[in-house]
């Protein structure tokens, strides 16, 4: 099949864009999920949409393609473009403009009347144009009704269709808000669609620590939000991120946990079969099937609230036992930002001042090993570290010893 710039299926491009953006060191031959030709086509598409952010390097392993962008310096997430590349037929685009044109003056017409007008006022001018029957038009009208572009009204035995413009917000007043929320909201891609309709967007915002990859999971997120809003169970088709193995889980979706420090997003849901709360990474979800309404939704939500009290991140540890952790920090005069840091960055627990230059952080969490990356940010100031789970302090000390060896700091000093 000849190459086309647009795509029918999002799943494959989602996977390639993630590879190019996060990793970017694989050569063409290492993309083994599909054929080499498929790789060439996907790479060409991404280049067509995001050429300015694409780079490559050549080494002994071959040519590698990668996406590289400092998201602090750009006002708009370039990955949103992938959602604007859906393929369609000639009939789709033609009917889109014809139908909205016919109904543009606010009238309400039946499928038959719209079909007649399309044939007489538009298609009759093109001798070689496609043939059109009423059922095709009716199908398109129903599709547009479900999207909210048209409203159906009963008139006797007929169904009439009318555009829904009359009850719209004035988008011009949203221009600045759209520039902000298109980037900051988890479903910002919708804001990007709206911004496209506005013309010149506001350019006054930039975003630090701005993770843009989540945009590729927007469709999945949207499905989950609809299920949560309707309090429905969902059947998830997942693919393990390492082994690539596919599997299914049926859960009651409750919350979306988002990391502002890695960009990862997780669904927290009640897993019926396992009878417990489980996290699923959104980028591992391939498909969602909406299930039945869940009568116990409030019960599960209350469970989630209790569960959340001792979560540091998204690890539930082993057997849900709590780890008790204490870290004593020493800082110099003039470094009062250190206790301030503890207070603003801690997610649970408490901070107590021991003297003018010493403070202690204490917390009880399901899995204290999840805290290690944060604890290490205080390297150089940790006077004492205690944990009821000795594996945590052991890991900290081993890592410190290895770092001392890496940087030539006399690792023997660490016990």
């Amino acid at each position: 099949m000849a190459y086309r710039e647009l795509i029918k299926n999002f799943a494959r491009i989602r996977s390639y864009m993630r590879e190019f953006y996060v990793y970017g060191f694989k050569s063409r031959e290492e993309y083994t999920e599909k054929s080499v030709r498929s790789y060439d086509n996907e790479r060409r598409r991404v280049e067509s949409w995001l050429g300015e952010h694409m780079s490559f390097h050549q080494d002994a392993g071959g040519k590698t393609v990668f996406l590289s962008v400092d998201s602090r310096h750009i006002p708009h997430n370039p990955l949103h473009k992938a959602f604007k590349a859906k393929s369609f037929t000639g009939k789709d685009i033609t009917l889109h403009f014809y139908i909205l044109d016919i109904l543009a003056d606010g009238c309400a017409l039946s499928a038959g009347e719209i079909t007649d007008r399309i044939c007489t006022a538009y298609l009759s001018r093109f001798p070689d144009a496609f043939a059109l029957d009423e059922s095709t038009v009716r199908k398109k009208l129903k599709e547009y009704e479900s999207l909210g572009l048209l409203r159906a009204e009963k008139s006797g035995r007929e169904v009439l269709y009318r555009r829904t413009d009359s009850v719209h917000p004035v988008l011009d007043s949203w221009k600045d808000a759209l520039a902000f929320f298109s980037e900051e909201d988890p479903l910002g891609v919708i804001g990007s669609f709206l911004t496209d309709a506005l013309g010149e967007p506001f350019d006054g915002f930039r975003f630090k620590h701005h993770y843009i990859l989540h945009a590729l999971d927007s469709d999945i997120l949207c499905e989950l939000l609809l299920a949560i809003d309707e309090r429905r169970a969902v059947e998830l088709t997942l693919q393990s991120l390492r082994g690539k193995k596919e599997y299914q889980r049926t859960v009651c979706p409750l919350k979306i946990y988002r990391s502002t420090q890695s960009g990862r997003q997780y669904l927290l849901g009640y897993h019926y079969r396992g009878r417990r709360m489980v996290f699923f990474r959104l980028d591992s979800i391939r498909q969602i099937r909406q299930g039945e309404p869940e009568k116990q939704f409030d019960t599960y939500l209350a469970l989630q609230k209790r569960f959340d009290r001792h979560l540091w991140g998204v690890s539930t540890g082993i057997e849900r036992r709590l780890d008790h952790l204490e870290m004593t920090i020493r800082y110099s005069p003039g470094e009062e930002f250190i206790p301030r840091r503890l207070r603003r960055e801690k997610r649970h627990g408490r901070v107590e001042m021991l003297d003018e230059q010493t403070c202690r952080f204490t917390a009880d969490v399901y899995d204290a090993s999840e805290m290690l990356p944060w604890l290490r940010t205080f390297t150089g100031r940790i006077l004492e570290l205690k944990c009821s789970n000795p594996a945590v302090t052991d890991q900290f000390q081993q890592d410190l010893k290895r770092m001392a060896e890496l940087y030539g700091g006399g690792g023997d000093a660490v016990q």
Partner: protein
Amino acid sequence: MLFSEIYGSYFRVVAAILTEAADAPLTQARLTALVREKGFSESTLTIPRALQTGEWPLLDDSRRSVLRHKPTMPLTLLEKRWLKALLADPRIALFDVDASGLEDVQPLYSPDVFVPFDRYADGDPYEDPVYIACFRTVLQAIRERRKLRISFRGKNGTHHSFVCIPHRLEYSAKDDKFRLLASGKHAVNWINLGRVSSCTLLEAYPPAAFSPPQTHTEELVLMLHDERNGLERVLLHFSHFEKETRRKSEGEYEIRIRYDRDDETELLIRVLSFGPVLEVKAPDRFIQLVRERIQNQLGYTPLGV
């Protein structure tokens, strides 16, 4: 759902073409220029041909639109539900939006469905009237290219007031704070909006009076030793930087990150958070900073168990 042609680039480009071709025929050159300006880089291979061959019967032989009106599209239900959801976000108070037309719309989600579990706790006060007024004044000044007199508390509590040219507002989801990048008489300043006590709009400035502040970019070279899923954790964590990764050998990767030197301390603790999975190779100054932290820590040994 979101991946639909009605939101797509091609529909938007064709709408722009039909808008311009509503009043007068388009030249071939103008048709191509519109596609080049608004479409993807290879859209010129498809859209002009489909419109001119009648495959998409929307332009007549003289390249004039066959539609009776300039094309417009109502908002979809999903778009309206998303806008309605934003109205429950405390940050919407910063913007003067007209919410009429959304009264009967069900929000797509409630803000508490999201749990930003590692967001810092001292975010900006989005419901404070003074903060809101200052935010809107800053936004207006940026939009209208006007100077500002701004008063704020410095880090040490000292009061400052000066006239500046506001360049842009920067938001950090991790800090949940806005900062203003502004040029004063002598220097470029980052001002936490949460510390601003008053803002006064002044006269417009000539474009020549201002050029965007330059950043001082440095390159950090890291060697990643892939263990404990370190490869994915590190690459995702630093994915918002301009970066390049090369595999040096099995389980060993070199990562080059370009960063703003003003953010060096923050980057240092982020590198430290990965422990021995990340080894700093350059610049030397950065290596020295890591070494000092480790030496200080070793000074506290043995760590209590």
